[in-house]
């Protein structure tokens, strides 16, 4: 049976499903957020409906949820009429996220259900035909447990696994940092031999930064930090007294970390400061996690830097500068930037799914009886 192989990046900021069709990688991207409009607010509903947006309706609570980019646009529109303090005081007029710091919150029942609907919609977007149960395999990304938080990822990964099974897919989880390694296939040279799928994979996401040290496609070390892209937005929002949704949009559209002209713009200045702080924080934890080793790593290590938070211009140069100053227990061979840093996790999951699919096909060919055996029976 020809199964559909799907990669799925389940991120705090974006859900990205991917598959391969006719020698092309197809990515379907959906922002992972929603905005609540109470049923009683008929005018707001009319405006939102006429914009052609996607909705979810909650009959129990009498609420409409605008989703994705429409939600952000609506939130930004509101913030032009209201000040930041008013937005902060009223939870019901804030942008909502099903996930926080990289995982589902077990206490947020609605968030979990919202995520499930979004997951279904984003996977449907890459699958043209309606699949029967068992005709699809999904490798989905999961974060490692954080070194700086006291929550674990078990509820999150099992909930997603249950949902994918309910949709009829065969789910497999894949560590996000390892997915980045699979996406770019870096290699190390040990005793003259090239060892593929080896090196450091770093996924700079919105809710978490995931790090994986891999060797020959296997994870030797994996961890995450809960300080990531969202943390930058929150800190900048605090110091500049600007709503977070405005910061997020500015960061994605305008930020250039290589620019030297920081004095002209308070938001730009703040973004620089907190990006620098984040990079130092991640490298500090990397050094700490590797500190248990007795010896320095003898071979040069490539580092794959991926994820939406790594996209701003100048990020990689800043990262390289800080990494060289940190005195890590290895020499950096090269820093690899994926062609599409935001898609690397999804691509890595897709690579894992395709590798699994090809293995299954080979087993089927091996196990198929030969023509002679069929004739004699």
């Amino acid at each position: 049976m020809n199964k559909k192989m799907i990669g799925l990046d389940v991120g705090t900021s974006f859900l990205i499903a991917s598959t391969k069709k006719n020698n092309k990688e197809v990515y379907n991207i959906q922002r992972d957020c929603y905005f609540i409009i109470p049923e009683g607010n008929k005018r707001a509903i009319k405006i939102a409906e006429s914009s052609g947006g996607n909705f979810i309706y909650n009959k129990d609570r009498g609420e409409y949820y605008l989703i994705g980019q429409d939600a952000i646009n609506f939130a930004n529109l509101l913030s032009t009429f209201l000040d930041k303090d008013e937005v902060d005081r009223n939870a019901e007029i804030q942008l909502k996220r099903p996930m926080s710091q990289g995982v589902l919150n077990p206490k947020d029942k609605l968030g979990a259900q919202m995520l499930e609907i979004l997951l279904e919609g984003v996977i449907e977007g890459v699958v043209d035909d309606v699949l029967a149960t068992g005709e699809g395999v999904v490798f989905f990304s999961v974060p490692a447990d954080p070194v700086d938080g006291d929550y674990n990822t078990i509820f999150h990964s099992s909930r997603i696994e249950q949902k994918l099974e309910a949709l009829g897919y065969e789910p497999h989880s894949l560590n996000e940092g390892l997915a980045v390694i699979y996406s770019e296939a870096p290699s190390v040279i040990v005793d003259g031999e090239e060892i593929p799928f080896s090196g450091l994979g770093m996924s700079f996401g919105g809710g978490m930064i995931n790090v994986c040290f891999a060797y020959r496609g296997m994870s030797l070390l994996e961890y995450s930090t809960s300080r990531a892209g969202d943390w930058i937005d929150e800190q900048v929002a605090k110091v500049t007294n600007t709503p977070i949704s405005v910061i997020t949009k500015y960061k994605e559209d305008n930020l250039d970390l290589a620019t030297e002209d920081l004095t002209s713009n308070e938001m730009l200045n703040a973004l620089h400061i907190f990006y620098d702080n984040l990079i130092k924080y991640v490298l500090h934890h990397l050094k700490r996690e590797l500190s248990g080793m007795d010896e320095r790593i003898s071979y040069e290590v490539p580092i794959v830097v991926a994820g939406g938070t790594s996209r701003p211009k100048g990020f990689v140069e800043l990262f390289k500068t800080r990494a060289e100053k940190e005195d890590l227990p290895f020499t950096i061979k090269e820093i690899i930037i994926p062609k599409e840093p935001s898609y690397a996790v999804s691509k890595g999951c897709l690579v894992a799914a395709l590798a699994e699919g090809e293995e299954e096909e080979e087993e089927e060919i091996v196990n198929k009886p030969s023509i002679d055996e069929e004739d004699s029976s």
Partner: protein
Amino acid sequence: MWRIRNKTANIVLIDDLGISLKAYQDFDLDLLGRDKSENSSQLASFLNRGIIENIHKEKREVETNSSIEINSLITNSVRDAMTAFTQEFFSKMSEDVSQGIINGFTGVLKEKFLENLSIELPNLNNDVGFDEISVYETQAAILKGKEDLSSNFEQIGQKQEIDSSDDIAEQLRKIKKERKNK
């Protein structure tokens, strides 16, 4: 459960099981399957050489063909997390710790679990044992607040196509095959 520990300050890679252990890390081999672990020559070698030690190995469970099989990551990991935590906690106390303190502590844990479950399963009997609690946690997770949601879409998202000429998946498949054949 079959719990092992990496006794060294280095990362240990058990290639034929496909796992790696951080310095001093514990791991439950039953998560991979008892047969697979017992047939691992690398594991046997590490145990012989004292690089890895056995912490606890339960008798092999008899497998059943029950059609009602509760297979939940939450169930196993809750049990594992509880066991690991209590083992670590009590290993640091003196050997004179009485069974009464242990029973009291597990009673507190049980109360906490039941408190969390009572929202989804209000008729839950307070006399349930620890093993049963993890089963009910699974059920509660499934029943959790199915609010009546409906959407005006089947598909969402913005699509982008990228030319793909690399054979990375094939390279990964070869690596995995080499590992399996070892």
